[in-house]
C-alpha cells in the first residue's frame, strides 16, 4: 500500500502529477478566471494610480490602459493554458518554459496592442510617451525595454499563477490521498468483517478474559493465536495464493480458539500429507470450510461433535476434505452456506476447482475442495 507510506517528496511529485493532469485542470476551471480578473484588475489600478501621479489621467490614457489590460488578459489566458498542459517534472524546464513563454507573450502582446493603438491614436506603444528632444520614431533600445518590461510582467504573472495552481493541485491531491486512504481502510475492515465472524471474535475475547483469571499462561498463548488469525484475515486481500501449510496453521489457531468456547464439545484433528504442504491455494478457503463445519457440526449441537481436516494430492489436484459430525438437512439446498466459498474458489482457482458437500455415512458431513495443481 504505497498510499500509506507517502512522504513529503512523493506528495510533491503527486501534486505535480495532478497539476499537469488535464482532468484536474478541468475540475478547477473556475480558478483561472477568478485569478485572472483579480490579477489584471490590480494591474489596472496600479497603472491608473501612476498615470494619475504623472497628472496625465485623461480619457485617452485610461482607454489605452484598458486596451493593454484586455490584451494582458487574453495573452495570459493562453499562456496559462499552455503552462498547465506541460508534462514535465523538471524545475529547470519549468523555469525555461515560463521565461521563454513570458518573452513570447510579450511579443504577442505588442503585436495585439500596437495595431489597435495605431488604428485609433496613430501612435505606437513605445512612442505614446514622448521623449523630449526626440522625434516620434522608435529607437531600438526603447522597443527592447518595452519587450523586457512586459515579459517581466508576464513572468511575474506566471510565478503567481503557478504557485496558486500548485497549491490548489496539492490540496486536491491531498484530499484524494485521504479519501483513498479511508477507502483502503474501509475495504480492509470490510474484508476483516467478512472473514472473521463477530460472534466468534467477541466470544473469543470474552473467553480470553475469563482464561486470564484461570490460566494466565494459556491465556497469553491464546492471545497469540487470535493475533495470528486476525493478521491473516486482515492481510488476505494482499495475497492471491498462500501455501497450504500457512492456511492450516491459521485453521489450527482458529480451532484452538474455538476450543475455548466449546471445550469438550469440540474434538478436532488436522492431517496433511507432506507433499501438500507447499501447494498454493487461495487464502481462507479451508478456513471458511472449517468455520462452516463448526457452525453446523458443533455450535448448533448441544452434544458437540468432531471436525476432521485432511489434505492430500490426488490426480493432479490438491484435495482438502473437511468433515464434521451431523447430517445435511434434507430440505436445505446444496448450498448450506458454502456458495461464497464456492464462488471464491472458482474465481481464484479457475473453472476446474471444485467444492462439494455431501453426507458421509450416517453421522458425518464432508465438504471437499479440489484445486488443480497449477
Amino acid at each position, binding site marked *: 500500500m504505497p498510499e500509506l507510506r507517502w512522504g513529503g517528496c512523493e506528495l510533491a511529485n503527486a501534486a505535480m502529477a495532478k497539476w499537469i493532469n488535464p482532468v484536474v485542470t478541468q475540475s478547477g476551471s473556475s480558478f483561472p478566471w477568478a485569478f485572472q480578473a483579480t490579477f489584471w484588475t490590480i494591474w489596472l489600478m496600479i497603472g491608473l494610480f501612476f498615470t494619475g501621479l504623472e497628472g496625465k489621467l485623461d480619457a485617452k490614457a485610461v482607454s489605452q490602459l484598458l486596451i493593454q489590460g484586455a490584451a494582458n488578459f487574453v495573452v495570459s489566458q493562453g499562456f496559462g493554458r499552455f503552462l498547465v498542459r506541460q508534462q514535465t517534472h523538471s524545475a529547470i524546464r519549468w523555469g525555461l518554459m515560463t521565461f521563454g513563454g513570458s518573452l513570447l507573450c510579450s511579443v504577442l502582446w505588442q503585436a495585439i496592442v500596437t495595431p489597435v493603438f495605431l488604428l485609433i491614436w496613430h501612435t505606437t506603444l513605445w512612442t505614446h510617451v514622448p521623449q523630449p528632444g526626440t522625434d516620434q520614431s522608435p529607437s531600438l533600445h526603447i522597443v527592447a525595454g518595452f519587450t523586457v518590461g512586459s515579459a517581466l510582467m508576464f513572468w511575474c504573472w506566471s510565478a503567481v499563477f503557478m504557485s496558486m495552481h500548485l497549491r490548489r493541485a496539492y490540496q486536491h491531491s491531498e484530499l484524494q490521498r485521504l479519501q483513498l486512504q479511508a477507502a483502503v481502510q474501509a475495504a480492509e475492515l470490510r474484508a476483516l468483517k467478512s472473514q472473521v465472524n*463477530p*460472534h*466468534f*471474535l*467477541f*466470544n473469543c*475475547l*470474552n*473467553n480470553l*478474559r*475469563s*482464561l486470564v*483469571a*484461570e490460566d494466565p499462561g494459556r491465556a497469553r498463548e491464546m492471545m497469540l493465536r487470535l493475533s495470528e488469525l486476525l493478521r491473516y484475515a486482515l492481510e488476505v486481500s494482499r495475497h492471491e495464493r498462500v501455501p497450504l501449510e500457512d492456511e492450516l496453521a491459521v485453521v489450527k489457531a482458529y480451532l484452538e480458539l474455538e476450543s*475455548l*468456547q*466449546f*471445550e469438550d*464439545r469440540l474434538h478436532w484433528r488436522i492431517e496433511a500429507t507432506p507433499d501438500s504442504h507447499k501447494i498454493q491455494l487461495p487464502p481462507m478457503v479451508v478456513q471458511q470450510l472449517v468455520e462452516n463445519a463448526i457452525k453446523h457440526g*458443533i*455450535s*448448533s*449441537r*448441544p452434544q*458437540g461433535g468432531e471436525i476432521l481436516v485432511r489434505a492430500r494430492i490426488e490426480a493432479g489436484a490438491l484435495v482438502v476434505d473437511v468433515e464434521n459430525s451431523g447430517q445435511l438437512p434434507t430440505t436445505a439446498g446444496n448450498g448450506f452456506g458454502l456458495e461464497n466459498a464456492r464462488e471464491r474458489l472458482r474465481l481464484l482457482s479457475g473453472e476446474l476447482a471444485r467444492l462439494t458437500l455431501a453426507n458421509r455415512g450416517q453421522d458425518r458431513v464432508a465438504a471437499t475442495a479440489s484445486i488443480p495443481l497449477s
Partner: protein
Amino acid sequence: MRLRTLIVEDSRLARAELRRLLDNHPEVEVVGEAANADEAELFIPDLRPDLLLLDIQMPGRNGFELLEALDSVPLVIFTTAYSEFAVQAFEKNALDYLVKPVQAERLAKALQKAEQAASQLGLDQPGAGQREPREGDVESGSGRTLLKGTDRVFVKDGEHCWFVPLAEVRLLEVEGNYTRLYFGTHQPLVPKTLNYLESRLDPQIFFRASRQHLVNLNWVKDVEPWFSGSLRLMLRSGQQVEVSRRQAQRFRDLMSL
C-alpha cells in the same frame, strides 16, 4: 432481599467470568448455571430464579426459544457476543442486555434495573423468590403453582417480543394449535394450546367462556344475556366475547360468589 439468579450460557469460561463479576454484587445469589436451553428449562421450575442472565446464542434452542417455552418468565438480562438486529428490536422491551465481554459498570446498572423491577413485581416481599408456594397460591392438579396476574409470559411474534404480565392479557383465543393473546394493541400468537394455558392459569382470574375463548375476568365491564341462555361479555377494550350456554351457568356461579 437477594436476587436469585440463574446463569444460562453455553461457554464454561463465560459462565465463570460472569460469576467472577457477580462476586462483587452481594445482592445477587447465583443459584445455578445452565449450559443450554434444555438444562435451563429443567432447572427453572425447581430453582425458581428471580433473574436469568441469558445468552441469546446457544446450541440447540436459543435464548428466545427458551423463554417462549417457559410458562412464566423470571426477570431477564440478555447477554450476547454481538448486538444484532434482534436485540435492537427488543431493547425497549427487555429489562436490559449486555454485550460480552461484560463491563462491570454495565452489569451493575442492569442489576440495579433488575432490583427495581423485582420490587415492583413484589418479589422482595417476605417469602418471595418463589422458593416455596406463597400463601394464596393455588396448586394445579400436577402440583405446579398456577400462574397469577403478576406472572409474566414471554411472547415473540416475528421481530417483536414482549414480556407481558398476565393481568394485562384480556383475552386468549384458539388459533389451531396456537393461542392468540390480546393485550394492549397487540395480538400475537403463542405456540401453546388454549387447553394447556387454561390448565396453567388461575381459574379465579381466567374464565373459559367457550371452546374458543379464555377471558380475563378483571377486564369484563358488562354482562348481557344473549341467545338461548348464553351470555355476552363486554370487555373494557370494547371487545365482545360470547359465553356458551354450558359455561354461562358456571359464570353465574362464579360471579355470585
